[in-house]
């Protein structure tokens, strides 16, 4: 194979004078995690609200929620990324658009990336939350009403606490997805882990070393997330209620 392996490359200085290539990848991981976590907050908050709306008896709310989910689910993530980054600043008033475009890097691409990932994932979480609430026995909702709770109270004290425990496993995989999907932000110039590996490859020409390192880091992150979520699941478990049977298969990433 005519390829010059050089595993020492990670300790060689990168051309931007910031230290070794290894440091580059660590910074990349930092941005990946920062992007994923920030987007996760949006995704969880919006997803929970929209998902809940879709289970209310109010028809127009259900329809609004459905439209929201369909919108974000049926456009590829990369195209949504472009909409946030290239299109949105041109549609808003000029002053605001200019301000958006002139944010210094990495914020100029970080902010659109976070918004894009956040809303994209919120639609998926909304779907999980809706399924979680609807999987609860109907008696629970009736019991809440029978106790004289208002609709919001029924949700707050009866339905949501149980639903959230049910959706925890699918949420784990959504969290993994948001980490992986943050790599798409490299197309709008965010220097996250995959982008770092790619530019390390461009500068050093050590393609396979760079991508191997990135792959290993993603696997490690994956393991950490899975272990952490397992601990969390055990913490919040309601005895005898969940953990029964595997979740239904879901298409997705």
């Amino acid at each position, binding site marked *: 194979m*005519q*390829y*010059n392996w050089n595993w020492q490359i990670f300790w060689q200085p990168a*051309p*931007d*004078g910031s230290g070794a290539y290894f440091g580059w990848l660590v910074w990349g991981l930092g941005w990946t995690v920062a992007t994923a976590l920030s987007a996760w907050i949006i995704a969880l908050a919006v997803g929970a609200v929209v998902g809940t709306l879709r289970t209310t008896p109010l028809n127009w709310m259900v329809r609004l929620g459905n439209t929201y989910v369909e919108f974000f689910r049926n456009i590829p993530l990369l195209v949504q990324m472009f909409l946030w980054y*290239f299109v949105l*600043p*041109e549609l808003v008033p000029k002053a605001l658009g*200019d301000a958006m*475009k*002139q944010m*210094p*890097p990495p914020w*100029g*691409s970080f902010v659109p990336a976070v918004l894009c990932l956040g809303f994209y994932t919120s639609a998926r979480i909304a779907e999980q939350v809706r399924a979680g609430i609807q999987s609860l026995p109907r008696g629970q909702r009736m019991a809440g009403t029978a106790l004289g709770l208002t609709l919001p109270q029924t949700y707050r004290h009866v339905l949501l606490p149980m639903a959230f425990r049910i959706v925890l496993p699918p949420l784990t995989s959504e969290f993994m997805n948001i980490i992986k999907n943050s790599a798409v932000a490299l*197309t709008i*110039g965010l*220097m996250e882990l995959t*982008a770092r590996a*790619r*530019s390390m*490859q*461009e*500068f050093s*020409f050590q*393609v396979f070393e760079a991508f191997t390192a990135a792959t290993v880091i993603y696997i490690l992150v994956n393991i950490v997330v899975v272990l952490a979520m397992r601990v969390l699941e055990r913490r919040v478990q309601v005895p005898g209620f969940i953990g029964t049977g595997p979740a239904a298969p879901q298409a997705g990433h």
Partner: protein
Amino acid sequence: MKRHVPLLIALFAWAGLSAAAQAQEFTGTLKKIKDTGAITLGHRETSIPFSYYDDKQQVIGYAMDICYKIVDALKAELKMPKIDIKLNPVTSATRIPLMANGTIDLECGSTTNNLERQKQVWFATTHFVTANRFVSKKASKLKTVDDLKGKTVVSTSGTTNIKQATEFNVQKKLGMNIIAAKDHAESFLTVDTGRAVAFFMDDILLYTLVANAKNPGDWVISPDALSVEPYGIMMRKDDAPFKKVVNGAINGLYKSGEINKIYEKWFLKPTPPKRINYNVPMSAQFKKVIANPTDSGDPDVYK
């Protein structure tokens, strides 16, 4: 029967000889082209006028024309009446790995030949000499690299230009924010839409991008050349027989003066798609290369 013996011997000898000629063992890329009957040219999307898409989305350009001449030379060398030409798009970031892994056989574009890259790939005889500069909007009044202190600039990922900008940033402590874009058009748009103030690139590419812009008058290219960038057509490393044919073809163009016609077509006459005449006369540096063809990756050779 006896009468025919000499004739038979002659016949056998002829057959044997031609078989020997046939079996002249080709290696590397030459063998691959001979065996598959095809060659894959890597091309660019927006390296105007070296290798780019016209309005019918056909790949055209100065480097493409040179590559087609190389393919003609390969036909002669391999005694093949026809070689299928396959085209594969590459970006600055993908061209070197795709060359190494055999996806493309020649890269026809605007790739700087330098010593560092020669550790990975080989280059044919230099087909253009340019320099690293930056383009910016006239309104922002930026002349030298020092004016860019603390500003956001852009370059195309995987190029020598972004690397140089990165190094300047360290040496001169400029504190510039450098964005990496996918291709030259995207980099240019980054400045056009106001996300960055300057775009570092080879001046010839900047020049053609400006000429194709909506308002060419709005733009200005920095006066100082920051480097010397000899362009070469890339091929796989350690493939001397192939390189010999490729360089032979290019040097032939230089010797016969045919290069002048190709040069004129792309730099001194209106070019597709917008019939723009870039009007870039041949530089002294490139004239020197034509007189004494070289494939050196050392910028000092071109000074």
